[in-house]
């Protein structure tokens, strides 16, 4: 609900630009002494009129939103209040719906509805009045302040700098948000399930009803089969993408003519631009059935959700990743090394094998690590083409499950948020995040060093 005070701030802010500008215009000394422009004074007044009032408005909204829920909950007669916390939340929600004029299926106490409406009315009233007065007061104070002592330009630039700084902090805040949300849920998960069982247990069946005589969630959250499945699919993907990507990179950077390179390189990169859901469709409808038919013709039993299908398609997805990263690394090997090698009579392939690859090895390893991290975190292909049941197997024709598949199946659809099941998804997410982060930090550092070393 946008109330009148926001419109007021908007209008006052808009007009204060012209008012401030006019006041500066009248005072010619101002401009010549401070080195600012008239419009700077307009903006100066706009900021002072709107910003404090807006900050106040938002703070009040957040606080009152919190208070109103607590107070309404207290106002519910104790005989009507459900004991369960999530039921309380639902009950409160239906009270709020009724208070806003909607209909609710469950019967709600009128006293709480009236209380909520009263609270909301006075809160909004108080908010509007104080917001309007704050903006008016600061408007007058700073209107009078516009004289030769105010350096509006410096002030404006400092404000802009603050905003620039805040937006660059968002990156850190995102990371902190990721870590916080993962850690909080994961720690709840480990209250139900021991760390030992999670990392070493061999049975993963979070969807199953608990077996008889089972204590809490014991015995169904052993993540080893999930990790093993992820590992198997990643291995298959890398077995395809590693050699193909690397040899493409070598050929493109060392052998291909400029024109060939100009055509082939973007063509390969098209693969990187295809959305993963498309690869998933391809894996599930084309590659999966193909592999099953082929292996059946050899007399091998294959699941239609085989690890091989998901792994191969994931490999195709990763090829451009490996080839373009390796290409960069190989190109950064200085020309003098190649020439020295040719000078002692080595052929091109010998130069590549004996000189360039060793020189580029750490960078190539880093590229592979980034690719592995990409493969581990890839979701759609495995969700669509790999299985759901956690089997501990090394047979690529069997169906296995992965960390990301489990996260998706545990969290998609209707669920209560605080069950062990959903928290297990966050534990898996935490594991995934930790592993990929380690791979990334190490690999990014190597790649960066590489660029500096030969530059």
């Amino acid at each position: 609900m946008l109330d009148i005070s926001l419109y007021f701030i908007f209008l006052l802010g808009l007009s204060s630009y012209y008012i401030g500008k006019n006041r500066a215009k009248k005072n010619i000394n101002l401009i010549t002494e401070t080195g600012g422009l008239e419009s700077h004074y307009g903006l100066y007044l706009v900021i002072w009129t709107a910003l404090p009032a807006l900050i106040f408005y938002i703070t009040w909204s957040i606080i009152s939103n919190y208070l109103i829920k607590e107070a309404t909950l207290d106002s519910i007669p104790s005989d009507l209040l459900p004991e369960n916390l999530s039921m309380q939340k639902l009950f409160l929600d239906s009270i709020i719906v009724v208070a806003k004029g909607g209909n609710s299926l469950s019967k709600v106490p009128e006293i709480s509805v009236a209380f909520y409406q009263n609270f909301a009315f006075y809160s909004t009233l108080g908010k509007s009045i104080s917001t309007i007065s704050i903006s008016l007061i600061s408007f007058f104070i700073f209107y009078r302040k516009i004289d030769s002592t105010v350096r509006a330009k410096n002030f404006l630039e400092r404000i802009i700098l603050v905003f620039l700084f805040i937006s660059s902090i968002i990156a850190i805040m995102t990371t902190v948000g990721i870590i916080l949300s993962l850690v909080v849920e994961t720690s709840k998960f480990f209250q139900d399930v021991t760390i030992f069982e999670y990392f070493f247990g061999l049975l993963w069946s979070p969807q199953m009803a608990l077996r008889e005589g089972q204590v809490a969630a014991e015995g169904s959250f052993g993540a080893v089969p999930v990790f093993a499945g992820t590992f198997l699919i990643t291995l298959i993907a890398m077995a395809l993408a590693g050699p193909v990507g690397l040899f493409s990179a070598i050929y493109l950077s060392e052998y291909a003519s400029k024109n060939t390179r100009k055509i082939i390189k973007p063509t390969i990169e098209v693969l990187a631009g295809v959305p993963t859901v498309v690869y998933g469709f391809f894996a599930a409808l084309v590659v999966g059935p193909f592999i099953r038919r082929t292996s059946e013709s050899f007399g091998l039993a294959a699941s239609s959700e085989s690890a091989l299908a998901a792994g191969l398609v994931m490999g195709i997805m990763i090829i451009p990743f490996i080839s373009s990263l390796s290409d960069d690394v190989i190109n950064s090997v200085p020309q003098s090394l190649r020439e020295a090698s040719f000078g002692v009579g080595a052929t091109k392939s010998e130069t590549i094998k004996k000189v360039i690859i060793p020189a580029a090895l750490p960078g190539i390893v880093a590229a592979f690590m980034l690719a592995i991290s990409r493969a581990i975190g890839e979701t759609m292909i495995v969700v669509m083409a790999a299985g759901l049941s956690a089997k501990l197997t090394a047979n690529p024709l069997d169906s296995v499950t992965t960390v990301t598949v489990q996260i998706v199946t545990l969290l998609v659809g209707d669920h209560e948020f605080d069950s062990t099941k959903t928290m297990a998804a966050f534990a898996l997410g935490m594991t995934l995040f930790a592993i990929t982060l380690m791979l990334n930090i190490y690999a990014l550092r190597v790649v960066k060093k590489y660029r500096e070393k030969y530059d």
Partner: protein
Amino acid sequence: MTNIDLLENQRDKLITKRYNKEKRFILIGRLAIALTIMFLTILLGSIVLRGISGFTTTTITFNVTLDKKLIDPESTNDKKVISSARWRKITRDSIYNVLNDMSLVMNGEVLSKAEQKSLVRLFSRSSEYQIRDIVMDDISLVGKTIEVTLPTASEVDQFLKGKIDENLPEDNRPLNNIQISWINHMVDNGMINKTFNSNLFTKGDSRNAEDAGILGALMGSLLALLVCLSISFPLGVMASIYLEEFAPKNKLTDMIEVNINNLAAVPSIVFGLLGLAIFLNVFNLPRSSPLAGGLVLALMTLPTIIISSRAAIKAVPPSIREAAMGLGASKMQSVTHHVLPLAMPGMLTGTIIGMAQALGETAPLLMMGMVAFIVDVPQSITDPSTVLPAQIFLWSDQPERGFEEKTAAAIMVLLGFLLTMNALAVFLRNKFERKW
């Protein structure tokens, strides 16, 4: 043979061996490239092959008798009365008549229950609603007999596209013998026609393959991208300006840089978990809404935009800044008046590429509940909706045959959008690229 000859012979052999090795090496390289291009061709080819037929559909034209007694016996002309008429019976009666019109059955001959069922199955399950909507648009039709053109059931469509094998035993195929003979008659009579599948672009999701469209998903994607763009573009540009132009060299700046690079490599599903825990559970944003989805996409694309914007700012030569400052501009003025406009094309290119990434992204949106079955086309950023990739994911799971070509067709639409966006980015880069 002298010693020298022997040595020369050995040398020649060695050289041949080395040259062969060289050839093999090149061959492996060529093979790798050929393999990659083959994969690409198979990937795109198999999708186009499957999807191209999804753009056409089969319609059936037949007469519907709008019996006044069944629709509006008291001539009220009230839309409510008409809307709640017995449309199913009206539709069925007209369908049973179709065989009479083709003179496949004698007048007065009554079809058996099984035959009636078989016949009705040839028509779309939504026929009765579509006929109702036609009448609701023009009440004066009541009492007349009108000719309507409606989609057939998706099995008929699939049969005519050759995707149902006629030689299978009758029990194993979705159409029985009598249905097939009717279909063939109708095709001969010109009742069944192939047309462009406009439903695909004008309708939301549906359980019936013949009625399902991507409009809802397209709108959802558009709204989510709008949210994403309006957040990540300003934030990304401001962050990159700070980092390139103003940031002091200290620990905090280093940390921000490391953070941005790492965020770019964090698996997308982790962003989904973040969105689920923070946007949905702490901030209570509406589930399945483009607002919540767009916010997650914004956090995901932010690193891409920052990295490319920084490259664009770096490309502006220092002489521009120095010239501006030499004329008395402040640092901030030199940036906002000179560096930013010059770097803008590069920033836009990066942003478009980031948006293309966001458009193709599915996994984090699964976490935000954007994979629900939603029929209505979303109107605002808080309506429940799905996005194009999520729609593809949903359809690919449908057991009904007719959805397979629809899924592939939707993929073609998605790829078309991505291609356009990337082409636009390349165009921008080429048009505005400046050599300093």
